[in-house]
């Protein structure tokens, strides 16, 4: 695994930057246009969460090559307030950012693998992967 890109997220411009990086890498790895759009949307959601709830954090995007399987991994991390009740934010219908179906459960469905780790007052780390089919 090699980190191909790391974007510090502080404002909305950084969200766009993270999206752009993600799309470029996805394209490079050979993802089709639908998956490119999905990966970009996932990055967008994760970066927006950082911007809205933690203030600042980072989005790392890397490519994976595991026994011939090609994948793209996104790591979104911040040192923000953390999530008190992870089960609740992973529930459908619980969304603070407005949009229908958006939020973390939406991101999880767009990607193939998803893990979240969060401690109150310490921060949150989300790792999610999409494999090339």
């Amino acid at each position, binding site marked *: 695994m090699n980190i191909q890109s790391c974007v510090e997220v502080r404002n909305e411009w950084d969200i766009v930057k993270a999206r752009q990086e993600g799309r470029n890498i996805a394209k490079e790895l050979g993802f089709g246009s639908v998956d490119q759009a999905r990966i970009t949307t996932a990055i967008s959601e994760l970066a927006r969460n950082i911007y809205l709830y933690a203030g600042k954090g980072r989005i790392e995007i890397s490519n994976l090559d595991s026994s011939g399987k090609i994948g793209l991994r996104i790591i979104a991390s911040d040192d923000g307030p953390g999530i008190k009740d992870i089960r609740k934010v992973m529930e459908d219908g619980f969304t603070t950012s407005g949009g229908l179906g958006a939020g973390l*459960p939406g991101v999880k469905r767009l990607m193939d693998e998803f893990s979240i780790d969060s401690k109150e007052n310490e921060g949150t780390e989300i790792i999610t992967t999409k494999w090339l089919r």
Partner: protein
Amino acid sequence: MDDREIQLRRYKSILSKYLDDQSEQTLYKGQQFSRKMIEQKISPEEAVSLHVSAMESLYPDMPQEFKNSYAFLLEMMIGYGFAYREHQSLRSRQQQLETEIEIAANMQQTLLMGEMPTVESLDIGAVSKPAKKMNGDYYHFVQDENDCVSVAIADVIGKGIPAALCMSMIKYAMDSAPEQRMQPSAMLGNLNRVVEQNVDPNMFITMFYGLYDSFNHRFYYSGAGHEPGFFYNAENDDFGELYTKGLVLGVSKKPNYREYSKDLQKGDMIVLLSDGVTECRSSKGFIERDEIVAMIRSNLHLSAQEIVNTVYRELEKMQEFELRDDFTLLILRRKV
């Protein structure tokens, strides 16, 4: 060839046919194809992508602006895909919940509904139907070795699962106080204590509790704010109200439940009901208690069970088969 290629080939052929003939028939084919796509859980962005791929292969020289516009449309559809997938997941969760409620409702049935007493001197009929899946009404008969029959009918103010849970507690409390079974007022006093101590202050339970003594054909009863029942005097052929005075269960710490009694002659009847019976609404407004009396009166020749079934069916029909509240109707008639 994988699924996507098969879909693409099929979509492309319908699309190119439509571009040729613009006929309603081809549109109809498209509609059928879209139904199949939904069945296969193709998300909106995948559908758009299918269209884009078909167009690209039909028009390889498509202007760049069009290609760009498709990329833009695809991005727009991702949001719809989000909503679509959430809908799917919520739907499967709803199905799961419904199954759970179904199981709970069955459990409630086995838990609450005891056997009907078989006493030589009494003809008994009972019907109880929930408005939703779970019943907030409750009735219970107990027959002892002396052929005394106790009857309880209760209604939780409120419907559905909370009401049903509350009923289960009442049933348990009644079972654990067998010594009060012969004393309606003491039974209500005891249940009042249970409800007062254990139930949310916003939840109230009305109840009527009676005991029929087969030896002297006397009916002892007490009520806790419950819808009054009827007493039918066969000799005079008239219906009177089975009035009781007493507070709803769970309101006061020390309520006073008065006990009443009534002697039954052959053919006399006791009719107990929940407010789901009197609050039935037909197109002409609320159904009056008089109308229920009239329905019972015109079916007096039937057995008690047939009477309650007939009244239920008639009220169900008057309400266009839509129960608004749980419905319970009991009849006890002295046979010999």
